[in-house]
């Protein structure tokens, strides 16, 4: 009974969507061969995604799977044109067979080979070769992380602002910042039981954390609402033309 109602809703929505588009196209409000077809496609995908709000349904699943596929395809093609083609194909392969004015850079063979080894992760027999590539990348990443993080996120973040500033509000704020940083660090200190003074400071740390999470909460609500506003703007401006 319930299922048949869902099917009914699904089909009437689809029919309504087609009717609206046919109406718009025939009235010339949407220009089919120009941007019109693209806008209709975009509106279709937007509405298909929102159909999840009613409940998980086939239209949403088809749209989502198509999207996942397209995004992967786009990633592959962009990687070809932006990385593999200029950095590998045109620096090694092309100069070997064609006079391009620059000799082939054979040193690039090393990362190319390591890159190909990486793909052996899926082979049962040769998976161990992929470890060389991962070791290279992960070792490199770890090595550059350590000193740069110490510099940018520890030394630069330790600010020693005087607690006696020219104005009282600034002094109070400087004190609160110090208290906040120290108490939060103490909250994440696991080698001492949170009792007595340490316990007290760690409770202050929790307050600071909660205010900060409140700020994040507010901002996240703002972010999601902004995304929705953008999509509704698309629907009623670009598709339906209700606003300019």
């Amino acid at each position, binding site marked *: 009974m319930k299922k048949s109602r869902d099917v009914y809703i699904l089909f009437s929505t689809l029919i309504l969507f087609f009717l609206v588009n046919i109406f718009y196209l025939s009235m010339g409000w949407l220009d089919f061969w120009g941007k019109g077809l693209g806008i209709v496609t975009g509106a279709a995908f937007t509405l298909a995604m929102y159909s999840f709000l009613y409940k*998980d349904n086939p239209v949403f699943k088809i749209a989502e799977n198509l999207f996942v596929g397209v995004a992967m395809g786009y990633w592959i093609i962009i990687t070809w044109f932006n990385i593999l083609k200029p950095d590998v194909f045109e620096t090694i392969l092309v100069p070997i067979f064609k006079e391009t004015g620059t000799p082939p850079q054979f040193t690039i063979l090393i990362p190319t080979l390591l890159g190909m080894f990486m793909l052996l992760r899926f082979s049962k027999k040769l998976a161990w070769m992929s470890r060389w590539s991962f070791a290279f990348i992960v070792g490199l990443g770890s090595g550059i992380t350590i000193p740069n993080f110490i510099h940018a996120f*520890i*030394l630069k973040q330790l600010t*020693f602002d005087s607690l006696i500033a020219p104005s009282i509000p600034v002094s109070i704020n400087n004190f609160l910042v110090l208290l906040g940083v*120290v108490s939060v660090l*103490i909250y*994440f200190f*696991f080698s001492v039981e949170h009792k007595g003074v340490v316990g007290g400071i760690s409770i202050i740390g929790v307050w600071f954390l909660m205010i900060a*999470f409140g700020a*994040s909460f507010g901002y996240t609500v703002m972010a999601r609402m902004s995304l929705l506003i953008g999509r509704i703007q698309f629907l009623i401006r670009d598709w339906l033309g209700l606003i300019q």
Partner: protein
Amino acid sequence: MYNLPNILISTVFVFFCAFPVFAAGGKTLIPPTDFEAYDTPSDNGKGVSLRWPASPSESIDTEYVVFVSRNIDAPFVTEALRINSQTMYEDNSDFKYHYAEIDPENILRKSSAQNNQIRKKEKYYFKLAITSGSSIVETGKLASALPKSDWFDWKKLNNFVLMISFVALVLFFINHARKSPNLFIRKISGLDAIDEALGRATEMGKPALFVHGLNGMGSISTIAAVNILGKIAFRIAEYDTTLKVANIDPIVMSVSQEVVKESYMEAGRPDAYVEDNIFLAASEQFPYVAAVSGIMVREKPATNFFMGYFYAESLILAETGANTGAIQIAATDSYTQLPFFITTCDYTLIGEELYAASAYLSREPLLLGSLRAQDIGKGILIVALVVGTILTTLGVGFVSYLFMAG
């Protein structure tokens, strides 16, 4: 080798130099009394540092110009630097000195449109002048410098010392924990709630649901989550309840199956282990949300565990769970999602508490040791912050100097 235009320009120069003091709008320009050039310390062998005392004729419309040449006899025509006279004071010099770092080779190459990549090691000569409007007055002293490469950046000494000490701390404590795995870790308050929640699930005869988050086995959050899952599974086996684990990553799923199976064996209940209870719910974020929410609504688990790294799906999962009346315990280091867990779950382990909980439960020396080392690192920074701020307040900049980023 002088070509004609150069000779012309140098002649003009000689002409200017013949009248060292020019009247500019009735104002006399006094050139700086001194001028020095030297190899920039701790650099890659390209830079030259220039330093000179401030001139009394500095004003908004006065500029300093530095000319560079490869040869002491050659004319100084290439401008290496042109700055407003009231800028680029040396730090902590109280506006008494100017300081600039330049790359003379780069400047000379650009001016002569040469593009050969090879750099010669040679001495550069510099001449300083002060200028305003059409008048220009040079400092009598020529300065020269030979840039050279250095093998250690002394400005980064404190950084280096910190790194070495932290390496020592981490290695020492991991070794220490291997020998004596009884390193103290404070109680994590949310952990006690696990027993309570499982007890309730047993009473109600309903399953407990464990959700990993979206990340794969490569993420520390997932590893920590799987560690905790092992302990939860052990308790579940003892209590004789059902445990369901909804996965999104096939590798995480097979690891979880192993871990849970082991825990059931340990608890002496291998018969109670059902492999299908640890399943792949979906492979994409939103279908996963839909699938897990569906399980929550249909089976109404008594307890939901959200442990690992979460993205936007956290909100929908935790909301659905809260509305089915389950006790919810969350543990995540994804700070952007924590607010939603705190407002919808009964207990939430915040950030690093997730790792601490996993170390606390598993007593793994690797985790314990590195946790302790990190604590000591934090301790040092806390002390530095407090002492440094007190000293700064008293007007002593010693600690802040030690921790200055180079």
